[in-house]
């Protein structure tokens, strides 16, 4: 594989985490414009973990996820009862507060005679733990996609359990779900927390694989893209947002076909899909059809 291809695939993998994060909330019927905040928080937290506190990567990445989860739980407790429109705008406002917070956040120490740590608008560079550990580009790609595959398979596995069913109930009709004994607030808070952890984990990966982060990376545009990935790729399965990210980054950003007009194509694609296919390419019906296809192959019909 060429270096360029590896870099594109790595990028798709990392950004898929924030798409997956927005997707988890979409499945419980919450449209968040603010998942980039947890991606950013995870990136800063994990980056500080290795670069400033000299933690090993294996501790820093979960730490990023933990910070993302806690922040998301806190935000969720305040906002999840709001009417849909208000919830979306509130998450957007929160994420912008976080972004400006990053601009104001300075935490500098000296390491090997060099200053290191987040430095407000100047960003946070030299997050080199992955490189110092001797990871090649292919190793990085493998790391990202292993973690992503793990996350997606866990989500798919959960879909079949009672937790997954409850999430779908709440996503479809919270009033009916409550009448069927489901604690809607609890399910939504759990989903928000999982979503925060996923974004935080992705952020930690992003900080380490790019070695440099700055506040404006975590602006509203990232949030909209995250949301759009699920809406394009499909809400019927956790593979949806990954497909969405692959279409955007792989097809639009990395090929020359749409250079200069990527956003025009992407924005139009989202707007048209919302009209024609409200739940994305891999919606519930598509997933059911694909599953039936596999069932039919695995179990040839009797008689």
């Amino acid at each position, binding site marked *: 594989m060429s270096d360029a291809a590896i870099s594109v695939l790595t990028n798709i993998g990392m950004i898929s985490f924030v798409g997956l994060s927005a997707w988890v909330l979409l499945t419980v019927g919450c449209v968040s*414009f603010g998942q980039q905040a947890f991606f950013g928080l995870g990136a800063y937290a994990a980056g500080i973990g290795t670069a400033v506190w000299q933690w090993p990567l294996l501790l820093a990445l979960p730490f990023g996820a933990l910070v993302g989860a806690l922040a998301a739980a806190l935000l969720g407790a*305040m906002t999840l009862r709001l*009417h849909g429109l208000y919830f979306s*705008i*509130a998450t957007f*406002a929160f994420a912008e507060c976080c972004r*400006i917070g990053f601009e104001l956040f300075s935490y500098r120490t000296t390491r090997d005679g060099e200053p290191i740590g987040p430095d407000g608008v100047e960003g946070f560079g030299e997050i080199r733990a992955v490189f110092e550990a001797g990871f090649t580009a292919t190793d990085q790609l493998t790391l990202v996609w292993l973690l992503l595959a793990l996350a997606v398979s866990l989500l798919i596995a959960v879909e079949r359990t009672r937790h997954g069913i409850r999430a779908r109930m709440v996503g479809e009709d919270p*009033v009916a779900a409550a009448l069927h004994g489901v604690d809607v607030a609890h399910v939504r808070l759990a989903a928000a927390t999982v979503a925060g952890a996923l974004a935080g984990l992705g952020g930690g990966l992003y900080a380490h694989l790019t070695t440099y982060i700055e506040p404006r990376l975590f602006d509203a545009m990232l949030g909209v893209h995250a949301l759009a990935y699920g809406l394009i790729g499909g809400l019927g399965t956790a593979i949806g947002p990954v497909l969405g990210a692959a279409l955007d980054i792989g097809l639009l950003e990395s090929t020359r076909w749409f250079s200069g007009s990527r956003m025009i194509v992407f924005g139009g694609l989202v707007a048209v899909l919302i009209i024609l296919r409200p739940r994305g390419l891999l919606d519930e019906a598509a997933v059911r059809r694909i599953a039936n296809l596999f069932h039919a192959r695995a179990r040839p019909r009797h008689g």
Partner: protein
Amino acid sequence: MTPLIDVVQVSIDGVMTGSGYALLALGFTLMFGVMRRLNLSFGAALMLGAYAAGWLHLHAGFGALAVAATTVVVATLAGVYIERLCFAPLRGRDAIASLVSSFAVWMQLEELATLMLPRHTNAFPALMDGDPFLFGPFHVRPDQIVMLVIAVALMLLVWLTLHRTRAGLALRVLADQPGAALAVGIDIRSTALMTFAAASALGGIAAFLILAGDRQVTPMFGMWATTKGLIAMMLGGLGSIPGAVVGGLALGLIEAHAQWRLGPQGRDLLAYALLFLCLVWRPGGLFGQTLADTEATARARL
């Protein structure tokens, strides 16, 4: 200057800026009142108008008046495009669908604008030059006064249009009781389109006045205009005309003082924090009503 004089001077500046915010909020609130939906592409439409005008200013030497007209016309066309793509086909679907769709179209409009003028800062013609007027120890720029006067005039015009014309009646009726609006013969399709066009034209004027004061336009303007209008509207109350005016002025005042005390980042942080707290504590704003019905009451109890 004594601190008290500073406070007054900052407040004057705040009201001047706030009049621009009020116009943006007015545009937002008109669209919300009729559709019960938020148009997040509003700022991007205004930005496209400003960029088209800026392009003509740069390449064809358009003067202030021609630039103003171009801004308004292109912003209006963009508003119509947004309504047709993100709102008209999604009527009857969840309000969130239009919200997300309008955010997606924002990307389109913004990229279209930056394709025209790829540089980060682009010149925008000033409305007028001239020394600040002095009122005792206070000074006010002439273009600020013009902006305030035009803003007040436009608000009056909007009020008169709403209360004295047939089109205004259609709009109010639709905002008040959509179910019965059909029964008295209001055509929702054309009223919604007209509202979007009018709101975008109004926003176009606001955009021109604000940018003429800054004498430049950057790609940040779309996001800026959307968030300022949104925050001002949320402060005043969704769908309320007086609320939009009061919210805009309040936001201008708060921001001016925050910038003075805390700097530009503090100002923005405060504005977003205010928006957030507003939503969490008092989603209806100061004047508006919260979205409520039996279903909403039930959902709030889950």
